[in-house]
């Protein structure tokens, strides 16, 4: 009777976290615009709210429920088991084995970050790149791994000696703010890396990166450029769009939209969606204001590498 409704339960970061909650919500919003469906969300204040929030969306109010973040993995699985007819999808989490009424959405972010690392290595003037994360957890460090490997690949191709500060893929240790909300940490950490000579930095800490962008804005892009993560940050941070060399896209909005579409078309099937370079679930954003600054041959190399990753002839981290 009533319109198709997609519901989202955020994790504790809230709907406006400039991170995965917001990006996933964008997927719902895009679907609302494109397919004319209803969308609503519930914010969780604490982890104890997950279950309660899921419960309050049951009873036929939602055609599909999107949950966000690995922390909601348990609550989603429990709810899905108790309500086998309800469709669910969870962002940034995969069940093994899969659950028939849940679609997990995960991303091979390192593929895209690899391209970003290669690009940055080609663009640096100081020969030093930087990265830092929010907390030392895989959804974060996978970006950093890819970034470092990409830069290393550039070194081995071009015989250069570009170094990446802030992450050591072997020891899995590096620079972390310890939070996903202190913007001025983002600024301070970028300043730290800049002081050590970095002129391109990739912050992997949600809104914290906005603080780094603020520093780049102040110093000027000759001194410091930023690589965004998750979404194309020229869109999410339009006022400082010019500091972003590019962004490592983790297209949660696209996968969320795909799940909603599937649910609408009755092609919904539990399992896993893996965002890759191949299916466009991850990728590199356009260079926007740096379109002219990036040399054509570098662009070409990146396209080549992308193709090599897609066809499997190049493995990351080798």
């Amino acid at each position: 009777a009533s319109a198709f409704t997609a519901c989202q339960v955020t994790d504790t970061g809230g709907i406006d976290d400039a991170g995965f909650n917001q990006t996933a919500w964008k997927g719902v919003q895009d679907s609302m615009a494109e397919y004319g469906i209803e969308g609503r969300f519930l914010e969780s204040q604490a982890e104890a709210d997950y279950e309660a929030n899921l419960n309050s969306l049951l009873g036929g109010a939602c055609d599909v429920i999107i949950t966000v973040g690995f922390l909601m993995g348990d609550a989603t699985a429990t709810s899905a088991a108790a309500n086998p007819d309800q469709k669910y999808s969870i962002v940034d989490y995969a069940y093994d084995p899969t659950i028939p009424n849940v679609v997990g959405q995960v991303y091979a972010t390192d593929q895209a970050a690899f391209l970003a690392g290669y690009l940055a290595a080609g663009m640096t003037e100081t020969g030093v790149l930087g990265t830092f994360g929010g907390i030392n957890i895989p959804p974060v460090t996978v970006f950093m791994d890819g970034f470092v490997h990409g830069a290393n690949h550039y070194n081995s191709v071009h015989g250069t000696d570009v170094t990446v500060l802030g992450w050591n893929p072997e020891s899995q240790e590096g620079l972390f703010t310890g939070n996903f909300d202190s913007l001025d940490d983002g600024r301070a950490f970028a300043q730290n890396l800049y002081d050590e000579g970095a002129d391109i930095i990739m912050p992997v800490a949600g809104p914290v990166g906005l603080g780094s962008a603020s520093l780049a804005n102040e110093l000027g892009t000759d001194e410091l450029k930023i690589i965004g993560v998750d979404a194309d940050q020229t869109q999410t941070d339009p006022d400082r769009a010019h500091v972003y060399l590019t962004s490592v896209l983790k297209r949660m909005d696209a996968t969320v939209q795909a799940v909603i579409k599937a649910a609408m078309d009755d092609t919904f099937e539990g399992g896993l969606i893996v965002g890759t370079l191949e299916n466009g679930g991850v990728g590199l954003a356009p260079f926007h204001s740096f379109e002219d600054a990036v040399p054509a041959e570098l662009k070409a190399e990146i396209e080549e590498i992308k193709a090599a990753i897609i066809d499997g002839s190049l493995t990351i981290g080798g």
Partner: protein
Amino acid sequence: MMDGKDLKHVNEDMRKLLARAAFGRGDFEDLFVVPVFAVVAALVLGAVIMLATGVDLPTIGQSFVALAVGSFGSLNAVSETLTAAIPLVLAGLGLGLGFRAGLFNIGAEGQLLLGGTAAVIFTFSFPSLPFPVLMIFGLLAGALVGAAYASIAGILKATTGAHEVISTIMLNLISFRLLEYILRQPYIQREGRSDPISKSVPEAGQLPRLLDWFDPNLRLHAGVFVMLLAVVFVWWLLFRSKIGFAFRASGANPDAARYAGMRSGLVIVAAMATAGALAGLAGASQVQGVLGRASPGFSAQMGFDAIALALLGRSHPVGILFAGILFGGLEAGGRQMQVDAGVSIDLIGIIQALIIVFIAAPLLVRAIFPWGFRKETKGGKA
């Protein structure tokens, strides 16, 4: 020296001295009238804020209905309210006890976090233990670790005079990082998971749900008994036990306590440890009763909310129980408010703050609602 008549006289005097003062009208106003007005005033102000941010009147009405229904309006609401109250009351009891002993323990958050983590680790480490044993030992492990962590601040204060406000703030910050580290360790991290999440509490270690036979969504768990027991225990400890007497004496006048032969160092450490144990218990009850595992920040600011709670309950166990139920109700009702009216749950924080203001400053409530109160006698405490 004394003849019979005198003796009778003396007994008469003693009887008079032992007659307890009656429950006065002032007490009644402070305990019942003020809170009612406080809640009303806070809700009115909350509505004003909603209006100011562009929420329309029907939605505001809807929000308040949702708030009421979501907190106490159904069995599920009551269950949610009590479930939310359990860890808050437990941690609040610890803080209240600290206040009574003159200690301002800002560290409940960290103690709760590590206590809960310890409960998880203990329960999944001994999965073969049978049901009540594993559950009880899990709670004890939480309490013990909470106590140990709080004792650091206590010992520092007792031996070097380091101010507990500083050390507990720092210990909180340390505990956040420590938990991140712990959750990365292979023994603790859940198999097959790459994100920071611990293994699960086995069935036998969980606080059983009490009402799931009626409706599987009712989350109220046996922690509610732990909470009630703790209220009674803390009341007994503070007002009936010897050590509690020392706590209160040291809190009210440390010099006099020292002169009376109480060991201030010992009292500080003991009070901190007890407070920490209660906070640890709060963490354990949350993981064993609701969450089933530990993850970064599962404490969700409960340790800080508990400060407000303890103050609101005037550091009295029964007051804390009621304050906890009020907070739990606001939390559950606030969730309903979000679901039904789409109003951001952050509004609840504002209403909580306003209620505390009005309850903690009876003079303010009296100034706003002068007709609700008896006139004070002239020359009284103006």
